[in-house]
């Protein structure tokens, strides 16, 4: 059975992948089966989400048992998870208590992390020259500075027109050209990855 199961998995994955792909090009013939398969995938993804939360709870439950000093974070997580599940189960996902939990805890914590992120990015930019002293690093930092100064009016000086013009050109010409070049590489890489799975060579599903 251990040898047969990976083969069955591969056959199911390849056939399903083919039907979904063909559904994009021949919607009249394969459109129905494509939408059915995508519907199943969405249901399975929702079940996977529940399993992921269960996995998260197990990881932290184990941490409480094994670690000494830092298990307070794991206890906080498990207690919060338990309370949130109870509140949302009773009140519904859009109920007033559920929204109160979300707006009072989740949103402020995420916004705080976003603020930390802004500081980290400024710090990383300043440290970049020490980390990678190359000409393209200097170009990167000069571009960042020009775009920042050209994006918003400065105190007492107001808008610096030449910088705004340079910023506009940077955003419209080199940035878009570079982004398209990168996207081209990413798109080809994604196609190659998809095809490897479609022909059954890459089997990330336990094959």
């Amino acid at each position: 059975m251990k040898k047969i199961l990976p083969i069955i998995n591969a056959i199911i994955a390849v056939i399903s992948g083919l039907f979904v792909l063909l559904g994009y090009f021949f919607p009249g013939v394969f459109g129905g089966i494509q939408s059915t398969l995508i519907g199943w995938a969405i249901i399975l993804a929702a079940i996977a989400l529940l399993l992921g939360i269960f996995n998260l709870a197990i990881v932290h439950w184990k941490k409480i048992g094994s670690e000494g000093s830092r298990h307070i974070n794991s206890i906080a997580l498990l207690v919060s998870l338990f309370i949130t599940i109870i509140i949302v189960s009773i009140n519904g996902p859009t109920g007033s208590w559920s929204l109160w939990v979300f707006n009072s805890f989740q949103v402020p914590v995420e916004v705080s992390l976003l603020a930390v992120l802004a500081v980290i990015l400024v710090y990383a930019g300043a440290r970049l020259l020490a980390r990678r002293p190359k000409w393209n690093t200097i170009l990167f930092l000069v571009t960042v500075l020009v775009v920042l100064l050209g994006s918003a009016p400065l105190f007492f000086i107001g808008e610096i027109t030449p910088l705004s013009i340079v910023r506009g050109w940077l955003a419209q010409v080199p940035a878009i050209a570079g982004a398209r070049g990168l996207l081209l590489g990413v798109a080809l890489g994604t196609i190659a990855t998809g095809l490897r799975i479609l022909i059954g060579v890459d089997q990330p599903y336990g094959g």
Partner: protein
Amino acid sequence: MDQVLSSITNYLGLLFILLCLGLILFYLLSDRGRARLNLRGIQAFTHFRREVDLAVEAGKRLHISLGRGNINDLQGGSAFIGLTILDRCARAASNSDRPPVTTSGDGVITILSQDTLRGTYRSLAAEERYDPTNARMTGLTPMGYAAGALPAIHDEQISTNIYAGHFGTEIALLTEAGERSRSLTVAGSDSIPTQAVIYATCDEPLLGEELFAAGAYLGAGRVHSASLRMQDILRWVLVVAIVIGAILKLLGILS
């Protein structure tokens, strides 16, 4: 003639995919006798291989973060590359006392990473080393995911952090944590704004298609090398097509 052209335009995507598939199969067959493909050096992969060896010797851990891409859309492609990297890491660290730990921000990716680890250990006849808690889902929102992955970086004696998948700007929190814990960070993503953040905050950034070349560089098999050659050829074909298109438009031939 117009009907033929219209049909070709309608099925151009399918023709392109068939061309990609044909090239992969062609290079797969033509490279059968070759020992190894000569690849241009990418510093990130050279350092990565060295750090994996050092981590095994020092009894330290590798942390592979697969991002929060959903496999039901385009973001899943980069996460699959992350799974290939996970497989190579688990194989390389199979002698280590500390198996690699994986974090992700999506349920499906978590299950696939567990499956990848199990499959890798099974193929090495070391199934007893598999622990499902080594592949974790740390959070579902971008910041929640990053916040959940931070303790793994700080507390689990990590020597190298590999970020391969779909991330947003929250990756800066993770790379900064890697820097603070004095571990090497290698990162690649399919998102363009994230690549800018990675360039500024990461020790070894993987830009553009470099992430998708990971399989070929880490020796994941001949098909990875064949698909890399396909990508190289088609990139030039597309560049030439874009340049010709631009010239034709400049001359007023194309509207």
